[in-house]
């Protein structure tokens, strides 16, 4: 092996590379595409999680849509207000109010408070279990508790505690992936400011609820009578709060004989755990 051979090889291959490089540099000048620089700026601000909760394929697609005017500047649910403000700054518009929402599981029928119809030992997945007689819990609309939502959550914000899925406010980015996966459609987006909500969605009458769940809403309408703002109503045998009307006074939660209305303290204080006096173990 001659040193000259090595130098020759380097020169020839390097030369080819150099020539192509120069040609490409020239071509890139000719075929330059005018990209709106705002797109790149916005993309730099976005979290880059590509979660898709804004409804676009990813952060890049969202940035493009914002510049084109098809997406709102506050469309990023992960970045929330700080990102919306910066994006609005780039676009030269007002950010408006970012309505922060968080996913909530509308069930608290945990292992300690429900009656099980049978012991389920099939495929470890909510959808499979739900097809099997509606799940092992007596309540047909209760949380199946096998954590399909927890598995799909890209932020690790859902945990199954005692057979009921619980959302961690801090981690939840309201991307809505869990909502699509829940076979019982129990997960809903609730405004983050909302400190009271009803954690039951069963459509059965109180008589049936009493038979299989200690935590279920019996539709007694006491909350409805207590509310000064016409914000809570019993529909389909369970109470539903109208978040637009609710002033978060908490009267309904105090009055509820079943404790089915969650009441978390004002921001700053640690939220009360929804699941009551149950040991820290799964089922």
């Amino acid at each position, binding site marked *: 092996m001659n040193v000259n*051979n090595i130098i*020759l*090889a380097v020169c*020839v*291959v390097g030369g*080819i*590379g150099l020539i*192509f*490089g120069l*040609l*490409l540099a020239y*071509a*890139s000048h000719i*075929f*330059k*595409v005018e990209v709106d620089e705002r797109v790149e700026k916005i993309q730099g601000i976005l979290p880059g999680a590509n979660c898709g909760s804004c409804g676009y394929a990813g952060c890049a697609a969202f940035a493009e849509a914002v510049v084109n005017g098809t997406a709102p500047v506050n469309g990023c649910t992960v970045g929330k207000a700080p990102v919306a403000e910066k994006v609005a700054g780039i676009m030269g518009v007002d950010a408006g109010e970012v309505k922060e929402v968080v996913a909530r599981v509308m069930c608290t029928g945990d292992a300690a408070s429900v009656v099980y119809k049978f012991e389920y030992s099939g495929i470890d997945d909510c959808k499979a279990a739900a097809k099997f007689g509606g799940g092992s819990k007596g309540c047909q609309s209760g949380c199946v508790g096998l954590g399909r939502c927890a598995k799909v959550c890209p932020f690790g914000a859902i945990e199954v505690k005692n057979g009921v899925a619980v959302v961690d406010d801090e981690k939840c980015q309201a991307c809505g992936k869990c909502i699509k996966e829940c076979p019982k459609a129990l997960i809903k987006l609730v405004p983050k400011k909302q400190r009271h909500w009803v954690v039951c969605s069963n459509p059965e009458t109180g008589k049936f609820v009493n038979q299989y769940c200690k935590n279920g809403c019996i539709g007694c309408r006491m909350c409805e009578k207590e509310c000064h703002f016409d914000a809570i109503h019993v529909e389909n045998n369970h109470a539903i709060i109208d978040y637009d009307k609710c002033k978060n006074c908490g009267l309904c939660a105090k009055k509820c004989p079943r404790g089915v209305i969650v009441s978390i303290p004002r921001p700053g204080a640690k939220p009360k755990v929804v699941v009551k006096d149950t040991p820290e173990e799964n089922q």
Partner: protein
Amino acid sequence: MALQIVSIMLSALLTENFVMVKFLGICPFLGVSKKVETSIGMGMAVTFVMALASAFTWIVNKALLIPFGLVYLQTIAFILIIAGLVQFVEMFMKKSMPALYSALGIYLPLITTNCAVLGVTLLNVQNYPDSFLFTLLYGVFAALGFTLAMLLMAGIREALDEESIPASFRGFPTALLTAGLMAIAFMGFSGFSLGG
């Protein structure tokens, strides 16, 4: 001469079809063959790259590699040329056909590593080391053969999309089965031969 040209064209298109007989370039063949429109675009891009790559590699091989005794660097030099050409095609498409550019997505830069393109150039220097015309012809017709296979596949897949296929067979499983059956069908051409 004329017979040889026809023979090269036929063999590159059918009897030695790159996808169906030589099994080269399977990645874009499966990846972009969901719609007829994108498959034509991909086929055209590959044709362009293959034709240019055939010409450039022939020149480089003849003018640089052989005189300097660097034939052992063929693969790396050819890859370099192909990568440069693909980059050029990408720029060109982004400028003039943005819709096709976004439809092809990742598969466009992936032409760089498309083994069909490298395969064509390497087969060319092996089979037609002296004839620029044959090299170019083989390159163009191999690419057209690739386009043909893609087009057939895309047509079949579009029709299959409307069939009620069992859930576990939907998508890639059916595509792979289809590709296998098509490959068997292309084997039927192997009886053809025009001398040359």
